[in-house]
């Protein structure tokens, strides 16, 4: 029997259960939904990251599409090679997808990402951002937010989060979007939009990580939702240079519509050491970001 949901999110699974992912893993869900959105004619390139493990160990695999593992810094360039060779061989209609963590994107992989974006290969690059090196044991990355605890920032990170989607957008690529797991339809529609466009496309998915962010495995979606509702994580897309808020973020320009950031921060052990001053500073960072967004929208 058909279900209205299947029209948007296909029933077919390309992510097969019984994986080594942690319970409540956002990367597992993100990849599962990505494969549903893009279907079987998709090749996934995965650099070193949690998904190196989540996919299952040799000789088994949880992933029912071609999957190429590659070195940490190399995913965007490897995908470039795959995309060019497939096009040359007349298989240009396949989706060539990079599925990388924030370390492999914001830090060690940034040069390769920038190179591939500038060259404009026909690739969808998706960063699932769990805001630290989770696979190696929660070390700080360039994408770790201000004051978050990690094992290498035991008293909280002193620097603010690197804004990768905007860095990619400045390469004037045809499509850049952010996504959150609490809004799978928004995520899936963005993936499909990316697949329909030619050139380099980038999607940045916030991936709340239960062990890394220190919250119960049942709260992954709830925290993803709070990230958006508090305005900490903004859902948007930049399509052919045009910036647009999407989903619930559309209604959050007015600060009074946004929940206090503290409601998001208090759900996570990684922020448990925060003082009221720290909370206020993070609120200020979020509010300033929205001021930027307001100015963009006003042109």
């Amino acid at each position, binding site marked *: 029997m058909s279900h209205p949901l299947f029209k948007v999110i296909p029933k077919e699974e390309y992510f097969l259960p019984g994986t080594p992912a942690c319970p409540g893993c956002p990367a597992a869900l993100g990849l599962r939904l990505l494969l549903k959105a893009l279907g079987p004619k998709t090749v996934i390139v995965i650099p070193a990251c949690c998904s190196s493990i989540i996919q*299952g*160990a040799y000789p088994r695999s949880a992933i029912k599409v071609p999957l190429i593992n590659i070195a940490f810094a190399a995913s965007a360039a*490897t995908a470039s090679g795959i*995309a060019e060779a497939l096009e040359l061989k007349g298989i240009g209609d396949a989706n060539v997808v990079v599925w990388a963590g924030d370390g492999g994107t914001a830090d060690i992989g940034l040069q390769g990402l920038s190179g591939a974006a500038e*060259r404009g290969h026909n690739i969808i690059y998706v960063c699932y951002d769990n805001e630290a090196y989770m696979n190696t044991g929660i070390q700080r990355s360039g994408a770790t937010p201000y004051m978050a605890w990690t094992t290498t920032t035991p008293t909280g990170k002193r620097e603010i989060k690197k804004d990768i989607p905007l860095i990619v957008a400045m390469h004037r690529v045809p499509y850049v979007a952010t996504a959150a797991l609490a809004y799978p339809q928004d995520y899936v529609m963005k993936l499909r939009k990316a697949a329909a466009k030619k050139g380099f496309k980038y999607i940045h998915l916030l991936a709340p990580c239960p062990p890394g962010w220190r919250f119960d495995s049942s709260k992954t979606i709830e925290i993803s939702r709070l990230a958006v509702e508090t305005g900490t994580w903004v859902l948007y897309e930049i399509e052919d240079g045009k910036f647009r808020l999407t989903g619930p973020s559309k209604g959050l320009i007015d600060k009074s519509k946004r929940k206090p950031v503290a409601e998001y921060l208090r759900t996570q052990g990684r922020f448990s050491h925060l003082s009221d001053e720290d909370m206020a500073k993070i609120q200020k960072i979020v509010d300033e970001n929205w001021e930027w967004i307001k100015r963009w929208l006003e042109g």
Partner: protein
Amino acid sequence: MRLVLTGNYAAAYAAKAAKVEVVSAYPITPQTQVVEKLSEFIERGEMNARYIRVESEHSAMAACIGAAMAGARVFTATSAHGLIYMSEMLWWAAGARLPIVMGVITRAMAPPWSIWSDHCDLLSLRDIGWIIYFCENAQEVFDTIIQAYKVAENEEVLLPAMVGWDAFQTSHTAEPVDVLSPDEVSKYLPPRRPLPYVIDFERPFTHGSLCYPDRYMEFRYLMDLSMSKAKKAIVEADEEYGDLFGRKYGGVLEKYLCEDAEIAVVTMGVLSGDARYAVDILRKEGYKVGLVRLRVVRPFPSSELKKELKSKKLVCVIDRNISIGRGGILGTEIKALLKNSSANVVNVVAGIGGRDVSYEDIVNIVKRSLDLVEKGEVPEYMWYSIDKEYVVKAVGEYYEPPAL
């Protein structure tokens, strides 16, 4: 077709003749003309290929890996820092068993900056599962790149191959080169088969995931096994090439006046030309000397070298490289091969950082080595042409390792 080409242009013509489908490279002196020429070929439509103008050598090899996994025949070229920067991906290419061919224009490593040849860059990567060829001149560069595809794509081999040649002396020196057309080469080199695997949407697979100790070791064993099989493939590829096109290089070793020789000079690369001339001079002076030129470093031609060298009075290995704290890399390997023979091995490190090694130097090296053997004073290894005054000025003394 006979053209006057530098070693670098010869490489580009070879990639074209081999019908390479994807080129991914990053510029570095002294490699640039290789990729400039390939860009011209591709942009003018003379090659049905894509050129991925990557932002680094690490990405160059990553893109080669991606393209090879998608079934393309791929080529790249680099040198020195570029080679070392991509070294992580070189391990990946070998472990993934992809028949990629890469030109390596050997150049000394910084600091201090140097753009001239020695072989430290290439030989530092001798243990990672790439076939390593080394050429003496532009013609051999052309012929060897085509042969390297034949070997790398051999189903019993399936390992990537580096083809080395010396900075400037080979890369930028023009000489007449007999260039084969893609049609001629297609008689020798058929299109790449999808081996060992190619991305297939009908039959999805995962490549390279986490492998536990209960299986990893077999993958390395199989690489080692394939590398040992590569030797036969190299010899056959050279023979077949010779039969079709009239040029062959002795497979893994090239020998010159070795049959009756009591002294063997062992070299690799462009120095071999001077060494051949030095052999002629020494012969005229009555020395029974021959030359063994290594054409392949991996797989190491152990049995061939042993057979050739074991009964020589003197084996003089001239290494254009230095394993700091150990000696010349080829000398060390050859000494290990000959340890139970009567041959005396003198290992001379020379030509580092592009320092000229003339035929007179080689004559000198052979005569001095012979003296040391006769006196029974053969050191582990020696440096040739070190300015001892400078060393004393720098560190107050000079003793070890000895400099000839």
